[in-house]
């Protein structure tokens, strides 16, 4: 086994890592902090990039790297199947495999100097969070930051500490949080993300919209953004397909001639319009 798969000639061989922290975000989402067994960050990522996380003997799946520190990476996993059921059982100290980083990344360079509008729903905040954190870390490079986020209910909102404590304290930043169904512990907006987006009436001037969430929400928000005057080049989203190899060989994550694992997961709406509508 490779001590460090980044330097290994075999890109399909995972690097041996350990879970160093587990945090429950919602009833079905847990956030895992992962480190190589030597105590290092498994690899460096750019916002939006992916990692192939494996549980030896159970399986492997691709997840976005939602944050990285000097000696760790973070992934937020929603419990949806056999593998994520098993991953949710993990405790600090448990061994996992990790390969990556995979895929392209959010346009951190070309968006410099622009106002940012981050829109996400449900677990879709996980990939977007990597860009939000990057923007706050390089605060002077970006203009005004609007973060619009929605989930089914207050309990289903992920990263609450950042949503309600950390990010609202950042300069020139507004949070717009909504839930599909209200509850006694929620005082904010109730309603789906797309209508709330139109209600907020963001001006498209000098702005880049970054969008991630369930397919239905993405489709509705794309329509809303176009209606609000956003050009196709001003809208960036991420695609999801089943992935296996992560390196553009195994065949299954193609949309047209593009592989989501290799050429994606980040596409502008202008790029998406060139691809077959098969997601």
């Amino acid at each position, binding site marked *: *086994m*490779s001590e460090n798969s980044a330097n290994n*000639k*075999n*890109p*399909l*061989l*995972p690097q*041996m890592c350990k879970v160093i922290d587990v945090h429950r975000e919602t009833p079905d989402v847990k956030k895992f902090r992962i480190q190589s067994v030597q105590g290092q960050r498994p690899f460096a990522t750019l916002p939006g990039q992916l990692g192939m996380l494996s549980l*030896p*003997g*159970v*399986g*492997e*799946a691709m997840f976005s790297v939602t944050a990285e520190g000097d000696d760790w990476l973070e992934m937020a996993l929603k419990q*949806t*199947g*056999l*593998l*994520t059921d098993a991953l949710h059982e993990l405790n600090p100290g448990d*061994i996992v*495999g990790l390969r990556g980083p995979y895929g392209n990344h959010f346009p951190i360079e070309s968006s410099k100097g622009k106002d940012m509008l981050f829109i996400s729903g449900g677990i879709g905040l996980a990939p977007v969070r990597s860009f939000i954190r990057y923007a706050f870390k390089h605060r002077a490079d970006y203009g005004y930051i609007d973060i619009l986020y929605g989930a089914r209910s207050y309990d289903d909102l992920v990263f609450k500490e950042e949503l309600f404590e950390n990010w609202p304290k950042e300069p020139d930043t507004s949070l717009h949080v909504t839930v599909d169904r209200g509850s006694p512990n929620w005082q904010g907006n109730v309603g789906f993300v797309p209508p709330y987006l139109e209600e907020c009436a963001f001006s498209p001037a000098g702005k880049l919209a970054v969008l991630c969430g369930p*397919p239905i929400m993405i489709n509705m928000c794309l329509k809303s953004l176009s209606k609000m005057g956003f050009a196709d080049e001003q809208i960036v989203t991420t695609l*999801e*397909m*089943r992935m*296996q*190899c992560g*390196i*553009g*060989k*195994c*065949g*299954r994550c*193609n949309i*047209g*001639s593009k592989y989501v694992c*290799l050429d994606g997961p980040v596409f502008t709406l202008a790029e998406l319009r060139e691809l*077959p*509508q*098969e*997601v």
Partner: protein
Amino acid sequence: MELKKENLEKALTALTRLGKVLVPGVVDGVKKFVPYAAGADIDLDMVNTTLPPKDVLFPQTQKMYRFTTGPDAAFEEISDAEEQILFGARPCDAQSIDCLDKVFLSGEYTDAYYADKRGKLTIVAAACAKAAPTCFCRSMGVDPGGAPNADLLLAPTAGGWNLHCQSDKGKAVLEALSGLLEDADGQALPPAQPELVVDMAPVAEKISTMFEHPIWDELHRPCIGCGTCTFVCPTCYCFEMGPEMHGAEGTEMRYWDSCMFSEYTRMAGGHNPRPSAKERLRNRYLHKLSYFVERYGQTLCVGCGRCVEKCPANLDISRAIEMIGEAKTE
């Protein structure tokens, strides 16, 4: 230089000194490439083997790495490449290896398992003097009289084959065969002229615009999703990875997969972007005739005709190419 038919067995025996020699043979009634052994049932006259030689480089099951689970978890890479000589591969099969090379060796990532095997493979291709009724290689740009990426080309003669060396690995084969070859060339037979001819030109022109075309509603109808076409296809390379467990120890395996199976793209949670045979067949044909061309500059079909011969529902990619070519587009 000519290798006479009567010296073939001696030649193959001589080649076994260079590595494992794989020849077209018959096992349990199935024509495929098998390790040569003296007296084996080899048949260099068969036009195409039923199973393609892709497993020589891309085995149906590949052991990737061993691992143990639990607190002392460890991973151990498995490398099982050995020197192999693929003897008697047809020009279409040689071209299919060129397609696989593009997938596994080009781009940002190199597939280590394929690269190890490819580096240790010598291709001795045999040009075709006759074609099967399902052969349409010429229509797909493959010359049945040549194989540019072969290390050595056998061109058929009345009594054997003329040898054309095409690389250093080919020279090593010639050296191993010294003493078994005639100095002069024999009378070469003309290359095959397949009767099945399709016109790719109109397809190349418009297929990238035909994703939403109603033709896919028709083409997929006979398909029963058995995956035979992908199994016998020399260029189909899609794979799946997964563990085989024995107690706390396991081996991560790589298996051939098929884009014609519904599970192939089904995601955790149940969403499937290609839910029916229509989407799956469309993706397979577009991959072969359009997407692969966009990505690598060549088609992912070499016209070998195996899928035409073996499809239990009589789906015929040559007929599909004709229909796509004739389809009206706006």
